[in-house]
């Protein structure tokens, strides 16, 4: 990890790459506008968070899901009060299915399938991101808008939930940029998981792969 002081975040690296620390001096202060990038997520489910609770949003006795601040995905049931663009959405979804069935889509050399990631995989992760982990994102403006960057996280646990949540966060915060994760070889040796990981843009944590992604201007996550 990089230095902890907020003052050394501006120290330019010798090679011109800028190191943005993710750990500011005081972890629980609200982020100032100039605060370093910091993706903080509540690692534990809602109940645990409530117990330790200086930050509960929902009332203590609230049993159902807390009200989400974002509108949930629009229900496409055949209600009379349908949203006006449901027909377009249906045609779009069917066209997507058709492209899948006829193999009419593109993947890159790493096996990354942007369309599937954006429309299916990230869409599945987003409710988990909002409602289960209730991720807070700060300092996302420090993520470059088009150049390459290496995002380093301190992640724990065997299931890389934090990596997936960071991927959702980066996609939302950067107007649709994809975080290309570097994974352990075990991921790619596992059936299904290796396949899904490659389709989501992950690749092996090897120097050659990381360098290739960074030099092509991608956001790389470790």
């Amino acid at each position, binding site marked *: 990890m990089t230095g902890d002081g907020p003052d050394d975040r501006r120290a330019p690296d010798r090679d011109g790459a800028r190191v943005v620390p993710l750990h500011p001096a005081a972890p629980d202060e609200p982020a100032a506008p100039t605060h370093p990038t910091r993706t903080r997520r509540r690692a534990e489910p809602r109940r645990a968070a409530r117990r330790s609770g200086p930050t509960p949003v929902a009332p203590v006795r609230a049993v159902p899901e807390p009200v989400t601040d974002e509108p949930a995905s629009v229900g496409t049931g*055949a*209600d*009379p009060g*349908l949203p006006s663009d*449901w*027909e377009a959405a*249906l*045609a779009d979804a*069917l*066209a997507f*299915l*058709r492209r*899948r*069935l*006829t*193999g*009419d*889509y*593109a*993947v*890159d*050399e*790493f*096996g990354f*399938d942007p369309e599937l990631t954006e429309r299916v995989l990230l869409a599945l992760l987003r409710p988990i991101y909002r409602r289960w982990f209730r991720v807070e994102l700060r300092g996302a403006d420090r993520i470059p808008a088009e150049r390459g960057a290496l995002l380093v996280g301190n992640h724990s646990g065997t299931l890389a939930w934090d990596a997936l949540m960071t991927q959702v966060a980066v996609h939302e915060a950067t107007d649709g940029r994809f975080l290309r994760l570097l994974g352990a*070889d*075990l991921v*790619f*040796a596992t*059936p*299904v998981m*290796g*396949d899904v990981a*490659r*389709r989501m843009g992950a*690749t*092996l944590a*090897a120097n*050659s*792969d990381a360098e*290739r992604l960074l030099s092509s201007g991608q956001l790389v996550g470790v």
Partner: protein
Amino acid sequence: VAPSVVLVTGVSRFLGGHLAARLAADPSIGRVLGVDTAPPGPDLRSRMGRVEFVRADIRNPLIAKVIARADVDTVVHAALSPDPSGTWGSATKEMSVLGTMQLLAACQKASTVRRVVLESTTAVYGASPLDPALFDETMTPNDLPTSGYARDATEIEGYLRGFSRRRPDVSTTVLRFASLVGPRIDTVVTRYFALPVVPTVLGYDARLQLLHEEDALAVLERAVARDDLPDVVNVAADGVLLLSQAIRRAGRVPLPVPPPAVGVVGRVLAGARIASFSPEQLRLLDFGRVVDTTRLRTDFGFTPRWTTVQAFDDFVRGRALRPVITHERVEEAERLVDRGVHAAARLLAGLGART
């Protein structure tokens, strides 16, 4: 300096035969000798024109006499097919490994030889979950195969390195070809995708990188014509297809087979003489393999005309593979569902208005 006498091995196969035919069409080349143990088929022979066919076994030291007598200056060893159709048994191994050994020994003695081009395969990189996404020419495989086709290819490349140490005056180039597809070539890959129901390994979706047969021939032709080319070059098309995607593009039905049953399915297909897979081809179906082609573009100076997707589509069209699932049928189903949902919505809206 343009080559004057070229010797091509393996001319009864696709690559060797068509390369010989192309070289024969080039008036700047004096003579083209084609060597193989069996004569080329009638279609190939009709294209070959002035190619002089020499029926010889390269394992036999007699090949040295052929080289010496014709003053051969360029040897293209195209005996190792990039995708062996059929099992890679001991006979093929002997042919390719011992044949290469004898051929290179003959070249070493012949003072006229000044260029050797070897056709190899990207299988030398292996296929494993430890692999980087792309292999470049300097990388070595993570799991060196202990036997079979990839191992033989590695050995053959080793012989050529030894040869170029002993004959530093001879320029050598190893061309590592990706799996070839195209309307005319017949390999284990093309047979595999011609199956109406294509077995895959459940839980894995390999990345495939292919090469169009015409690009392969153009690369071989360039390797013969020039002698200032790199020692080792990956030859593959741009882009990648996922195995499942390729099966769908061909209108085939994928049949995911659980890994323990893969061996049985493989044996059934081999027994029915449909297609047979070597263990490393099965690993390729699990993990796939993609190579970096920067050196091909820059140092070698060749850009493939077909991308992987275009090459595959050309193969599907050229073979006139009748799709089991056609695009039209999928589009029809799409329209049907769309209309159905619209009708249901109108119906429900009508009911809602009545109540």
